[in-house]
């Protein structure tokens, strides 16, 4: 019993010492004011938390848990073909119906969530499957967004032409980044990609004449078969609400973007799922596990790594195009390192390499901060706490990727 209380007491004392200056002594210009409650509160919270953790550990030690049996049963059930088929029909249906039940704010958030799904799927190829730690993924996102914005500004490209072109441009950038970093591993790769992301953002910010610098670029909203989504069409155009004979609502445009984006997400999902079981995907994973073994087996690591970079970059670029289209305005502040970190967090929290996990994590991590918007001051704090707690609680992510086993002799 004494030992039980001793440890938490020690923690609380240390917390008290550490937090007294920062949260207890608050700077007022060059002097300070003393708030004795807050460090005491933090220390008390630490005491309760630590005690709870210890009690929890004791309690769980005394519990009998048939872990293995449960997991086997669950696994067998979860991968059942009926369940899989039902979900693969049900989820897209829900997704397609969703925008008609959301208000404009809800739609904005939903579109943002889908964009993050795309980004996370792209990064998942690079980090999750190929095992290349890319901390500057935002670069490709920026290339996609600016590709559309500048293509529209200078060349008059529409959304539908810009989409494939920006995707190719981003893939090209992926190759460009891929070449110099072929020899690098782990954290050297991380810092170089991080640097690459920053370089792209800085160039976008500094090249005033071409990119508009911090003022950003205005983007036209997409059209659908020549129909426009604005209240009044430009010369010669027809607004879609007049064409359909319904009242104008600014929601129509967002619903349209959402639907197109949703279809693209489905397409990418299908592509990525297939790729995982195709030779290329298998090679990515093999290279992640052991590069030397792969190379000695005659696998061309250059092609494999570059294809992963290009593939991931392309999907990131598509995400960027949709971001530009839904915001109507891009400027470099949207492409900071924080975005890269966020997407990386999504991939890791979802479970490296697990596609459903990544999708769920992307949706949760976009919606969570929005739900917390009303607690504005504590938003980032809760977000950070959730990240730490999640990693300690489930370090392998939400869903541990399962390797599909191909059984022979069964048809």
């Amino acid at each position: 019993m004494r030992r039980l209380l001793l440890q938490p007491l020690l923690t609380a004392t240390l917390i008290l010492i550490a937090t007294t200056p920062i949260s207890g002594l608050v700077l007022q210009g060059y002097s300070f004011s003393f708030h004795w409650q807050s460090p005491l509160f933090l220390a008390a919270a630490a005491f309760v938390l630590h005690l709870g953790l210890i009690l929890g550990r004791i309690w769980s030690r005394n519990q009998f848990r048939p872990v293995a049996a449960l997991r086997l049963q669950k696994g067998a059930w979860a991968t059942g073909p009926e369940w899989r088929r039902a979900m693969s029909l049900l989820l897209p249906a829900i997704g397609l119906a969703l925008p008609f039940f959301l208000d404009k704010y809800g739609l904005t958030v939903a579109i943002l969530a889908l964009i993050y799904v795309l980004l996370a799927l792209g990064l998942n190829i690079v980090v999750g499957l190929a095992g290349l730690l890319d901390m500057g993924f935002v670069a490709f996102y920026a290339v996609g967004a600016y590709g559309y914005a500048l293509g529209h500004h200078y060349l008059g490209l529409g959304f539908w032409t810009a989409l494939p072109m920006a995707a190719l441009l981003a893939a090209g950038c992926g190759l460009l980044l891929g070449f110099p970093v072929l020899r690098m591993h782990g954290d050297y790769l991380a810092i170089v990609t991080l640097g690459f992301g920053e370089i792209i953002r800085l160039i976008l910010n500094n090249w005033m004449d071409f990119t508009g610098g911090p003022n950003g670029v205005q983007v036209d909203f997409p059209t659908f078969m020549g129909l426009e989504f604005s209240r009044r069409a430009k010369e010669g155009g027809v607004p879609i609400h007049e064409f359909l004979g319904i009242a104008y609502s600014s929601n129509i445009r967002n619903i349209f973007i959402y639907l197109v984006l949703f279809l693209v997400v489905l397409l990418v999902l299908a592509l990525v799922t297939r790729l995982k079981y195709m030779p290329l995907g298998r090679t990515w994973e093999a290279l992640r596990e052991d590069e030397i073994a792969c190379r000695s087996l005659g696998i061309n690591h250059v092609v494999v790594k570059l294809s992963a970079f290009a593939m991931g970059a392309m999907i990131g670029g598509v995400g960027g195009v949709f971001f530009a289209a839904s915001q109507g305005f891009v400027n470099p502040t949207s492409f900071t390192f924080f975005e890269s970190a966020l997407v990386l967090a999504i991939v890791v929290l979802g479970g490296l390499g697990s596609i459903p996990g990544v999708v769920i994590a992307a949706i949760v991590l976009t919606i969570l901060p929005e739900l917390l918007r009303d607690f504005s001051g504590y938003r980032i704090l809760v977000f950070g706490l959730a990240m730490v707690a999640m990693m300690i609680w489930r370090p392998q992510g939400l869903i541990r990727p399962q390797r599909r086993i191909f059984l022979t002799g069964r048809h």
Partner: protein
Amino acid sequence: MKKLMFHGMILLAWMVSASPLAVAGDAIPIGVAGPMTGAYAAFGEQLWRGAEQAAKDINAAGGVNGKKIELFKGDDACEPKQAVAVANQLVERHGIKVVIGHFCSSSTIPASEVYADAGVMQITPGSTNPMVTERNIPTLFRTCGRDNQQGSVGADFVVNKLKAKSVAIVHDKDTYGQGLADAMRDALHRLGRKEVLYEGLTRGEKDFNALVTKFKSVNADVVYFGGLHNEAGPLIHQMKDQGLKATLVSGDGIVSQDFVIAAGGPAYAEGVHMTFGRDPRKIKEGEEVVARMRKAGYEPEGYTLYSYATMQAIAAAITATNSIDGSTLARWLHAHDVPTVMGIKGWDAKGDLKVSDYVMYRWNGQGSYEEVPQP
């Protein structure tokens, strides 16, 4: 897996069903948006304090046509993405009909599309970038000046008063800062001068020693800075540490006590010049409000009274038209002048103030600023 899906669904369902907050029948919902968190939270606080005080005073006097004003705070942290999200949230969830904000021009511009689309009238008390009103949105106004006006006053002062021979221009590579620096450069060119240096520094950094030495190498006798106090403070500190005699001139981005703190004390801030609208605290109409806010322990510096005046203009428009429709209110504001704590204000067709008077101020050795006497 299934359990997780289930939780995801619940979360989604919650999102969907989170219906707009019911707006009480006898309240007028008004949004106040700005950087409430982040590096520029000092300005967000100014907007909020001013609007809050005004709403309190108006409500205490019986409200607007018998209805109380209800304020909703929106935090954009000075990021365009968040600005759009928060604008949507204010419009859709809180049902606001008028918004005071945003502060950073780079947030005001994308957010204004949302407000314009929803027919919400927007008045920004602090976005001075010309682009804000140049896009001719009929329901968008501002109660502050424009950077090109600031630039002209600045350039005139630098050339005619300080008799500067070589002017270096630096900015913080942000919409506001660079816009101001560009305005300064254009105004200088109009006066037949050319700057000796035009460069950007990185927001968030503190070491500008290399740039300061560069000022020395081009013999700058005036340094014009387009940006906010967070960077202006260390800049002047390092200029003085390196023994540079050049005068630092800046715009309304350093109008905050925080500038003195960031510079390292009044001794460092002394002698820095800046352009700002005639000090609203010295205008007769506002004396009583200023006294009241000071008594409550808040110094209404910077944009606080701009925000207060904005709220008064909104209240006046709603009282006169008895409507909360954005375009009706906007039409009325375009046509009528409004008495505020900052004197009588009127707007032109673009939504800019008809009269805006930028004045040169100088920080003194006591950590406050005073107007530079006109010749």
